[in-house]
């Protein structure tokens, strides 16, 4: 059964149809929540809250075919709420020192050839992404993890395609700066091209 049919049945009060949608999108929403929150328990709570919210607001969904994007929109809202709450709690308990990021970036024992290290590098990139300001983090996750197009991201976030483009460009510029220090150490790694960014620019042609 298609999403649209399930959504229509769910709007008519069919809980089983809605649970079919839950099974279909649970993993995607959970992954999105994990990418934004970085904490399994919070991500599961946020996923649950997202679906409960979706169930309550299903009547407001005008176009059944836009359910996946609409669900992501709700998920992002829920996740950012969780994130702000957690940030406030963390700042209250242990103020950020700013050392954590540099500690990771300047680890000298990274071996780019090792699969373990590659995996660590991916995790490191994800962590750096998670430390971007919210709007930039969200566009990176939606584009690189969810594989949404610029147009779909614009729909999810309720912004123009031009804004999506500029946010992505700015997010990547931030990432280049943050990754530069790390990549500098990996001149001969598979990511060595990126290390060139760490070098001072000689000016445009």
């Amino acid at each position: 059964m298609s999403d649209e049919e399930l959504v229509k049945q769910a709007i008519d009060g069919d809980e089983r149809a809605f649970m079919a949608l839950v099974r279909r999108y649970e993993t995607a929403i959970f992954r999105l929540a994990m990418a934004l929150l970085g904490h399994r328990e919070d991500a599961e709570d946020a996923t649950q809250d997202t679906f409960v919210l979706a169930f309550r607001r299903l009547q407001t969904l005008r176009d059944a075919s836009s359910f996946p994007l609409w669900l992501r929109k709700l998920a992002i809202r829920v996740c950012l709420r969780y994130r702000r709450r957690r940030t406030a709690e963390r700042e209250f308990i242990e103020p950020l020192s700013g050392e954590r990021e540099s500690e990771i970036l300047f680890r000298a024992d990274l071996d780019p050839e090792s699969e373990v290290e590659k995996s660590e590098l991916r995790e490191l990139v994800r962590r750096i992404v998670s430390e971007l300001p919210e709007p930039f983090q969200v566009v990176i996750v939606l584009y690189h993890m969810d594989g949404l197009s610029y147009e779909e991201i614009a729909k999810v976030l309720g912004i123009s395609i031009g804004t999506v483009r500029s946010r992505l460009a700015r997010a990547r510029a931030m990432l280049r700066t943050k990754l530069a220090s790390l990549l500098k150490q990996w001149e001969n790694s598979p990511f060595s091209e990126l290390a060139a960014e760490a070098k001072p620019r000689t000016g445009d042609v």
Partner: protein
Amino acid sequence: MMRCERVLKMLDAYVDGALSERDARSIASHLQYCPNCRQKWKEAQNLKQLLDDAFSDFNLRPSLLLEARIEREICAKQLVLHRQVNARRSAVIFAVAALTLIWLIIAYLHRPELPSTSSRKQTIETLPEVALEMREVKPTLSPHQQGEKAKRETESSNPHFKQLAGKQIFASAKLHPKSMTEKKVRLAKSVSKQFKRNKLQETEQTAEMSEELPRISPTTEAQTLLVRVERILSLNPANPIPVTIVYRVLNTPVGREGAIAIPYDGIIQPISVAEIPVNFSLQP
């Protein structure tokens, strides 16, 4: 030809394949001869690759219990929703019942002293028809017969009229504007205002009016009368029935005004001018 600055600004979108065909072609041609921008393009490609890789093995799955948790929450919400809907429905039913009861109480307290509500309503609804009239007089009955008939009907159905007709005493016509259409309300209001203005002198005025009522000569020819209702009077302020209508005939040089009591025998029929006897007078 595109400048480097513009190319660099669009480079990420170019790498993502999100540019228009025209912009993409311009950038591609620029990259062919600009090594510096070409280098930036490669870097942008690498960064994109790095980010894609970073999330490629992000194949996390939620715990198996999550679905059950969601289902439980949704069932609970559904239950709450049902309860809220039921509570809302009960509240609406209760409110409607309460309002109906209040309305019934008010209606009972303000009930007119009529044999039945339906006949009263019909009377009020038919009254304004008199105010609109421009109808032919069909002298099927002689004016004298008509007058006699009306008088007979009035007297037979209205003890107050029987008692008071000879004395020519009229009281206010308390109509009920809420049960009337706009036109009817206007008529009722004008009557009410007029009555209030003259309340203290009512008896005297009415008597004068009755005295001044000229007799309209009987006619055998059909004639069109343009009648305007001047006053609507009743014998009993608490009971608008029977109603006496004081009218003015506008387009006849002979008679100018008159009055008629609407006969009442349970159900009052619509009154037309044709039923207003041209020589009818309340004077005994």
